[in-house]
């Protein structure tokens, strides 16, 4: 069972992750290839990471 981490790590998305940094990660993610991974697993991870980087600017980073 996974529970979300608590604590006072809340900050706005802009504070935690600038637009430039998000763009840098997105560009890298396009070319990211794990060395030996199962391609299906890697694709699933890339999808999650891209989804995170592309999600709306509104709201908190930590929920």
């Amino acid at each position, binding site marked *: 069972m996974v529970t*979300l981490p608590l*604590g006072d790590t809340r900050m706005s998305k802009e*504070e*935690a992750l600038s637009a430039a940094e998000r763009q840098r990660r997105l560009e890298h993610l396009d070319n*990211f290839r*794990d*060395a030996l991974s199962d391609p299906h697993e890697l694709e699933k991870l890339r999808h999650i990471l891209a*989804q995170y980087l592309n999600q709306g600017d509104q709201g*908190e980073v930590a929920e």
Partner: protein
Amino acid sequence: MSIEVDEVLDKLPSFSPSVNKLLEALKQDFVEPKELESLLLSCPVIAGRVLQISNSSFYGFSRQIDSLREACVILGQHTLRSLIYTLAVLGDYRDEGDRTNQLSYDAVWKHSLYSACLARVCGEAHERNGNNLFTSALFEHLGLIVLDNFNPAWLPSAITLAAQGKHTVQDAVSEVTGLNYLEVSFKALEYWNFPNEVCQTIQSVYDGTDSPDQHILNLSNVVADGFAYGISNSVCTVSLKTGVLDEVFNNEAQALALLGACDALFAQLAKDFLGQS
């Protein structure tokens, strides 16, 4: 060529005399907060960071900690000891201005710190020891830096090899040096008297023990690589094991929340631990 890990460890550089004195005192079961404060004051960089980090969200205290003595009391000797060891190693193993070696120590620490933040939030989500996972992830790759100190020609060759083919950094280092750098990592930490739990966690990754902690560290490293915090461009630190993604992230919504919590922590700690924004 056959080099033993012990030969590498024999050449570990020592800390400055004031840091050594502080670490020596911390080997005792208990040190009076007043004495600890005085020893910390002779290591101003470490002292400043201890105070900064005590007040960061990393420990999550509800009130401001204003003095080193208060930090010594509130954090407790065990936690303070881990933090001071961490800061001592991070302080002494940094990029030097005249290094021409292609391995950037700062890149290694940035990768490690991002992995550490993600390992901590994932660990807490799974009711594991988040602080142990944080420190283990932070020092999992210390062996790379120790090996580079021993022979600066090794790592550039290993990174070139890793970038050329389907090698993880771990496999490439092993091919070039005949050593597993994870073994160097945990043995160096043992040599410095790091907490046993941290040494054992890294040793379990080296041994290939299949455990929740190992899976969390594995995924944290791969996410750091995927998010452009690689140890070097275009190389993979470790490989993602099948099934680990679902086990650690559980579902997409929780993955997004964990990544958000990780970035929030990383944004604060990059400055406190590495002096970077």
